[in-house]
């Protein structure tokens, strides 16, 4: 299992469109992918799970990947957060 601390850095946070991008990317991997906020883990392949995080700008999350392709999964998903979901701000 690989874990990485992530801070939500886009202005709108994990809103619906960002959550959809995240879920679509997570679904590309065989690994289990979850996001943890304040000890509560949700399945990052489930849009309602991600939405329920209600993670706004500045929220600290833990990205957790477990499976054969976990290394690539964690890099690509982290990059999506770092690129602010291609929203520019």
């Amino acid at each position: 299992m690989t874990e990485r601390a992530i801070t939500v850095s886009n202005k709108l946070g994990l809103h619906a469109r960002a959550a959809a991008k995240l879920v679509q990317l997570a679904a590309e991997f065989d690994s289990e992918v979850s996001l943890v906020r304040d000890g509560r883990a949700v399945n990052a392949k489930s849009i309602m799970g991600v939405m329920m995080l209600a993670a706004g700008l500045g929220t600290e999350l833990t990205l957790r990947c477990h499976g054969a392709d976990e290394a690539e999964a964690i890099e690509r998903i982290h990059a999506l957060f770092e690129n602010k979901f291609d929203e520019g701000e």
Partner: protein
Amino acid sequence: MRVGLLLVTHDTLGELLLESARVTFGGLPLSAESLAVARDQEPEAALERARSMADALDEGAGVLILTDIYGATPANIACRLSGPKARVVAGLNLPMLLKVCSYAGLDLPALERKAYEGGREGVLYGCGPDGVCNLNDTPHD
């Protein structure tokens, strides 16, 4: 081959929800249409329209029909189409629709369950007076 999706709603509610889903996902991952049932519309005519839309949407994997309020005319029309190749879920909301879109590759019975779960998951007591969101199913006071 994917399940087709038909929304049968009061007026243009379904169309607006579909547009929101389209924007959220950058396009829809399954074939989808919405039927707006107007107050002054003849139910039999709306039923025939719904039937032909459902037939056109069924590429072989069946059609999931989502409708807003159980017992109302749009839902009654939807239920008349219900059968082995058409499943109906009532209580349509945006969480239900987004969940269906995100599991668009599932078969009809599995997608029907996702619709039901998504709709229920989306109904929450929101943020309380303290500004803290309460994600369990108890009211704030």
